[in-house]
């Protein structure tokens, strides 16, 4: 009897979505040969501020062939899904003449703080997927912060108009079911509503691949074909 009481109490306090939800973990890899991040020679005029060489942030692959900064997205409409209440301050930092993090996920209608952490003039320009310029602001002062609200979901490319290697990608999410691979190439997506879905896997250099998942999926290994372009 006590067991039943406990069960009903559990039902009462557990949101239905969580009760019939599942978690997904995985890794994204690329077939060998594994591409190396390209070293970019910095123009002489910027070298004093930024150093003589920068490592391209576009394609970072671990020695084991696992890929960082891959965006994993569950496809579909989830009108009742809520972003977890968060006081998280979404921050894009400019430090050592690089944007950090290189790829960032933020919920739609949220505000991104863009910080200049160094005494180097940066010029932050943002473009949507239709290449429309969203804003263009100079940031000359160390400690300066820009706050920008992103209303519409989609990919936003952010560039510095002064340092051509500096760019970041902000993914504005329409629902919570997104994940990003970490530096080791692993990702985690929690509380996926029960059901089968298409999964989109996108990387700025490697492009998009798709697969399907269902409640039986617990750990996915997603594999890109060998990269042959050489422009990482």
């Amino acid at each position, binding site marked *: 009897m006590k067991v039943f009481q406990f069960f009903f109490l559990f039902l009462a306090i557990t949101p239905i979505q969580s009760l019939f939800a599942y978690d997904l973990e995985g890794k994204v890899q690329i077939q060998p040969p594994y591409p190396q991040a390209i070293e970019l020679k910095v123009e002489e005029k910027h070298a004093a501020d930024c150093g003589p060489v920068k490592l*391209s942030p576009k394609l970072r692959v671990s020695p084991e062939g696992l890929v960082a900064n891959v965006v994993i997205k569950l496809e579909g409409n989830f009108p009742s899904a809520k972003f977890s209440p968060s006081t998280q301050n979404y921050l894009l930092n400019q430090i050592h003449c690089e944007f950090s993090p290189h790829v960032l996920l933020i919920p739609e209608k949220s505000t991104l703080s863009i910080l200049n952490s160094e005494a180097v003039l940066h010029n932050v320009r943002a473009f949507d997927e239709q*290449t429309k*310029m969203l804003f*263009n602001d100079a940031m000359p002062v160390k400690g300066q912060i820009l706050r920008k609200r992103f209303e519409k979901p989609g990919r936003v*490319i952010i*560039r510095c*108009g002064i340092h*051509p*290697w500096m760019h970041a990608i902000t993914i504005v999410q329409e629902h919570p079911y997104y994940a990003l691979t970490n530096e080791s190439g692993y990702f985690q997506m929690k509380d996926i509503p029960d059901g089968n879905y298409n999964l989109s896997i996108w990387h700025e250099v490697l492009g998009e691949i798709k697969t399907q998942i269902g409640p039986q999926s617990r750990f996915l290994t997603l594999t890109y074909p060998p990269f042959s372009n050489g422009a990482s």
Partner: protein
Amino acid sequence: MNLAILILLLTSPQFTAGNLLLSMSMPAALIPVTVKVDFGPAGKPSVQKEFTIKDHSTPKEALSKVLPIEEGAICCHPAEVKAIDGVSGDPMKNRWWRLKINGSEKKASPHKSHLKAGDVVEWIYFEDRQ
């Protein structure tokens, strides 16, 4: 007496208004220019055309005589050229349109520069590999 009549005619409002009308109906001076478009990494064949255009036209006006263009802010100003013949600046790939007038980028503006006879206007699509 004849001289007085001539002076009166030359200074009369009808005469000056007539002159004005005459000048308004005259076509603006045309100048020869060359427009070159290099599509670079977009992979389309380059285009080069010599033709005449109104004196003081802008590089953007000259370009629009050769290929369809799309205006829009891709760098700094909404009057810029965003796309030429469907090839748009691409912030993700770091591909942009660059303008040169007589081989120089200095002070070359799509909508502010004014062309003179013999100018060569180059539009170059390039990818900044950084």
